[in-house]
Structures are given as C-alpha cells and as structure tokens.
C-alpha cells in the first residue's frame, strides 16, 4: 500500500489513522441491535474491522438479505450522515465524483465581458475553476464532508469494469484528484460500504481494496429474532413458525427463494390478518407474499402442504 501521507504511529502500521469508533465486535453488534439490525458474529466483526483497518466493505449476497440496510444502520448507529451513490450502467465521473458547473462558468465569463474590463485571463481562469463552480457528486461529497459520514455505494456491479477504476482512488486513498484543483484528501475518513448483487465478477483491483462480506440468508434463530424485532405485533410462536416455513422454502429448488424482506412482509401480512398461529390454510392463502413466481407457489404448496393443498 502506498500513500502520500506520513506514516502514523500505530500498532497496525496503517498509512493513516483515526480514532476507532467501536472498541470491539460485540459493541458493534449491540449498536446495530439498538437500531433494530440483528448482526451475527461475522457481520459485527467485519464492521468492526472495517472501522479499525479503515477499509471499505464489499457486501455481496442474494437480494433482500439486508446489504443496503447494513450500511444505513451503521450510519444510524454512528449518528453519521449517509451519502449514497446508486450505481447504474453508464454512470460516469460527472455523476459519481464531481462536475464543473458550465452554466455558471459561462455566466461568469459573460459577466466579465460586459462589466468593467481589465480582468486578465489568468485571473479569470483561476476564478472559474474554483470551489465555487464545482458541483460535488456523492464520492467527492463524502471526501469533503467535515461531519462524520458513511458512504454507501449501492449495486456497484452495475457499473462497467472501466468505470470501476473511478472508485479505486477514493476507496484506497480516500482522496479525489481534480486536474484543475489538485488532490482533495478526506478530512475525516468515512466508513464505506459497497453492495453488489453479483451480476458480474468485480475486478480484482476493487476486491483487493475491500473487506469482503457475504451476507447469506440467516438461520432459523436469527430470522426469528429479526421478525420479532422488526414486526412488533407478532407473537413469539408465530415468529418461530414463520422462520421455520421460510427455511423449508429456501431448501426447495425455487426460481427465487424468499428473502428476509419478503419474510418480514409475510409476517406483517399475517399480523394484519390477525393470525397468532399458522395453519396450513393460512400458509396456502398467503404464500404469494413470499414467492413471486406461480411455478414456485405451485411447487411449494405441493411440497410443504402435501396432497391436501
């Protein structure tokens, strides 16, 4: 790792240091739980290390397992501002990093022409390429923020491989180079989360710079706890039942396995319907909340409910 910054005395030998925000993985877990995000040991450890090693976290996993939510919740737990960059195909540096405000620059030039002349070119050039005419986009905003921020780069797999390179400088050095202004370094080192739905292989360069967290579907106990904490009206017995049904569904070979968010939708549905227990008929009637393909619904009701469904 190379850095332009001075070496800092630190047991970890990092190139830059920041006072740790958490003292242990347990504290992370507790802070997240206080914001109604139930993290297992792996999640809490990774967030703790991300803060301690000052590295971005790349989160992968099936849709609806709480990838984006993790970033949001960490921001909440820290009381930090969340800056979010939603990636899409064709995003470029003028959308991700910064852009010069052409219209304002044009106005400035025209104002110079009509007003008292005598403004020389260099002065004008220095003037129109200054902070005032810079439009900050999420990445630059996160670097320049003076208050604590959490940067969430959502669905990073949607950008092209070439565009990924834009992120690298920000992710490894926490700085942005603007040809006209020079290099802007972060005043506070933001926590960075990247999420990916794994629609394509991310480049080695990006992966190397990040800690990697694979979020899978939770096990029965954790899912039950998630349901209980997120859906207030649900009874403990019902939550257990819900978690068990969802686990059985995920073991079937379905086109789209139910995600955690769909589990929560289902729990809410059952609460609205006033169920405190889960009978076969209830499952059959509400399965469409969990499963989004007719073939999946047919298969699930055949497998789970037997012939009588």
């Amino acid at each position, binding site marked *: 790792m190379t850095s332009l910054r001075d070496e800092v005395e630190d047991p970890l030998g990092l190139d830059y240091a920041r006072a740790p925000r958490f003292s242990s*993985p347990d504290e992370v877990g507790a802070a997240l739980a206080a914001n109604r995000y139930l993290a297992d040991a792996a999640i809490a450890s990774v967030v703790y290390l991300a803060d301690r090693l000052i590295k971005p976290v*790349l989160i992968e996993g099936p849709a609806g397992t709480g990838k984006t939510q993790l970033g949001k919740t960490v921001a909440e737990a820290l009381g930090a501002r969340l800056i979010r960059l939603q990636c899409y195909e064709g995003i470029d540096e003028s959308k991700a990093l910064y852009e010069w405000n052409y219209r304002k620059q044009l106005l400035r030039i025209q104002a110079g022409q009509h007003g008292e002349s005598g403004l020389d070119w260099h002065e004008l050039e220095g003037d129109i390429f200054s902070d005032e005419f810079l439009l900050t986009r999420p990445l630059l905003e996160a670097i320049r923020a003076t208050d604590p921020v959490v940067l969430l780069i959502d669905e990073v797999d949607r950008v092209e491989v070439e565009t990924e390179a834009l992120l690298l400088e920000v992710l490894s050095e926490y700085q942005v180079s603007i040809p006209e202004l020079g290099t802007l370094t972060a005043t506070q080192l933001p926590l960075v989360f990247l999420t990916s739905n794994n629609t394509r292989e991310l480049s*080695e360069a990006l992966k190397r710079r990040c800690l990697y967290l*694979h979020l899978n579907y939770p096990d029965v106990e954790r899912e039950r706890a998630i349901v209980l904490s997120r859906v207030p009206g649900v009874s403990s017995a019902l939550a257990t039942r819900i978690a068990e049904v969802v686990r059985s569904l995920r073991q079937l070979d379905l086109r789209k396995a139910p995600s955690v968010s769909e589990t929560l939708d289902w729990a809410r549905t059952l609460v609205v319907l006033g169920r405190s227990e889960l009978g076969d008929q209830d499952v059959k009637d509400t399965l469409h909340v969990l499963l989004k393909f007719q073939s999946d619904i047919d298969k699930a009701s055949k497998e*789970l409910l037997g012939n009588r469904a």
Partner: protein
Amino acid sequence: MLDLLGSFVGELRDAGIPVSTTEHLDAARALVAIDLMERAVVKAALSTTLVKDETHFAAFELAFEIFFASVTAQAAADQLDGPEHEPGEPSSQRGSEGRGKGGGGGASGEVTQEELAAMLFRALREGDASMLAEGARIAVSRFAGIEPGRPVGGTYYLYRTLRNLDLDALRALLQSAAAGEGALPGSLSQRLALDDASGRIDQLRRAIEDEIRRRLVEDRGASALARSVRRPLPEDLDVMHATRDELTALHRALVPLSRKLAMRLARKRRRGHRGALDLRRTVRQSMSTGGVPINPVFKPPRPAKPEIFVIADVSGSVASFARFTLLLVHAISAQFRKVRSFVFVDALDEATRFFEGAADPADAVARINTEADVVWIDGHSDYGRALTQFHERYANDVTRRTSILLLGDARNNYHASQAWVLDDLRRRARAVYWLNPEPQSYWNSGDSIVAAYAPHCDAVVECRTLRQLERFVGTLA
C-alpha cells in the same frame, strides 16, 4: 501466530484461492486488531480479508477447520490433561483405543449404545453444543477405528461412524418430538418437523466430521491433512468424473455463471461498435453548446446474433458434460438468434422441442434423458452414424450464420468416422467447434478418433471444467 497465518495462506493458495500479498498483510493487521480468543471473530477476520469470492468459502472453511481447530483443541487438551503430559500422548492413546475397537469390537468406553443414542438425541433436541461434541467424541472413538499414520482424508472414518449410528431412527425420533401430538401426515407441521430434524442431523454429522478431523490433525499435522482433503473449487471440477455431491455443487455454480455470462455478452454487444447517428439526441445534446453539434450521439449497435446448433453425445460416459453444456447454452439462449440442440448415442434426435416452453432448462434436460429417441441398436456411441443422420435431415438448415458445437469424447467404438460430413458442414456453417470433455493427453488413445475429425473443425477444445466451458461459450457470441 504469524507462522500459522503464513502456512494457512499457503494452503489457501494451494487450494486455488488467489490471495495477494496485500490481503495477507490485511489479515495480519486484522488479527492484531481483534481478540484471538474468540474463534468466530478470528474466522470472520480471516475470511473477510482473504476470501473475496463466495464460491471459495467452502475451501476456506475446510482449511480453517484444519488449521485453527487443531490449535484450540490442543490448547484445550493441554489444559485438561495438565502440563506434564507429552504432546504426542493424547493421539497415541486415542489411536490405540481405535485399534482396540477395530480388532475386537464391542464394549470399549463406559457408555452403552443406547445411552449414546439417547445422549445424542438430547444434545440435538436442546441444541447443546458441548454435549453434542462429547457425543461425537464417544461415537468416533468407538466406531471410526482410526488408524494412525495413514494418509487419508477421513471420509471412510466418517462413513464407518455414521453407519453405526442409526441416523434414520434418530431423525424420526427428532421429527416426532418436533411435530408434537396429533400432527397429520402430509401436513405442514410434519414437513417442518422433518426439515428441522434433518438440519439437526446435519449438525451431528458436522460434529463428527470435526472430531475426526481433529484427531487426524493431531495424528499427522495440519498441512499434511490439508493436502489429502483438498478439493478443487467448483469451477475447476472435472465434470466427467464428478461425484453426485460435486455435480450438485456444479449445478449450483452454473446458474450465477450463466447469468454473468449473459450479462457480459449483452454488454459486449451493446458496446462493441457504434450504430447509426441518433439525430434526435444529437440535436438535443447540441442545445447546451448553443446549437453546435459538438458531441454526435449514435444509436446502440445491433449486430447480428449467431445461431447455435449443439450436437451432443449423451451416452453414459459423457452425459453429465453434455447436460451442463446444454444447460449453459440454453440459459444464455437470449444471446443467440436461435439455439437448436441435437442429441445422439447411436441415433440422432432433435431436442429443441424439450426446451421450448420449459420454464426451467433443467426440466428440459431431464426430459431429454427419458424421452429423446437416441438409441438405435446397442446404445454405444456411433459418431459416424449420428453425423450422417444429421447431414441427411438438417444439413440444409445450416447457414453462414450457424455455429456448430459438437460435444463428445469422439470415442466411436470402432465404427466408421464419416468425417466427410464435418467437412461439408464446415463449408456451409460459420464455424464448427468440437468440445471434448477428456483431458488432451487421452485424445486418440483407444477408440478415440479426435484426429479424424479435428482437421474439419475450426477448433477442438478441451472442456473439462466449468471454467473452460464458460470461457469457450463466452467467445462464441
């Protein structure tokens, strides 16, 4: 600790996981930052810094269990036995116990078979991890018959132990306990209880695996054991010789792989060349430059998509390879103008109809196995006859847009090769490719006649693993 980390990283690299020096450094830093006494945290720290691909987790987990279980188990044993014991003693003692069982069988240990079963049942029912580990320890010393010094991975010991524990009875017991009174057969509670019980049985199996592994590590050391249990990553598995479990893993790997491939191809096509000028957007764009069209905008290109004809040998020896290729090609069929598939053993049948309207290509492949009409006389591959039939019936459908993929090992059982067919097809088609699932060194040995067909193909490609298959299909579109 640093040495241990070093050899662990070495093991990961040997297993095929790419670990860069930066990542090694990160792992070392992470270990400084955390509490080393908490195993789950150590594991998370290592996996997050060293493994950057979810398909590599299985290999990581195995290596972690071997390298880091040994340390903690040894430490725990030292604490229990007291410091005056020799480090080698526990393993030899347990080894002799195992040998005793192997020779005479029967009454070792102070727990009876029934008591052991009851203990395992209670441990699983209540989710008591330490009791489960204890039960696994007893079961392994009693049944596994571990012989010290043998360079094995422990699969056989696992099999021996599990055979002696009546798992089906245990599962049934767990299921009825979970379902409670009055659960109707075929009802939801029954099914949930079954899944629950199976999950718990898996826990037991894992506990026994852990225990066997721990003993093997004590016996032979981590690196040696890691070498004998190392398995290739899913994408590097040899498709032809994969076991059933490995095939399931392959199957699972195929879905994301085909999705990624399709995405990449679609992107490549869109970005490849410029299409015609998009007048409307050019004019709109010129607004910001005072009506001067500085940046012309072009329409996205629409190059012609190729047509694919797959001709696959589905006889026993290469069936699983044909199945995977058909699945992959059909999974990305949107990237082609048309995909037609033909299957043969010693007669040829068109299989495209099975894929039409099938929601899941896997169903279609299953139907090919049962319904396609591919056997003529004896059910041994006859490439010559299949090719002649293809030529008779479908040669006129082959155009300059068609790429033909032939899948098979070209083991022709000494029938006539009829290589002229390929020559003629090649003249009609855009390209003819032969994908051979055998390693290149086996080609042309025995009844393999790759050499007879090779001159008439644009390329003959060795395609033993999913990775090779993906790379090849990626070049097609």
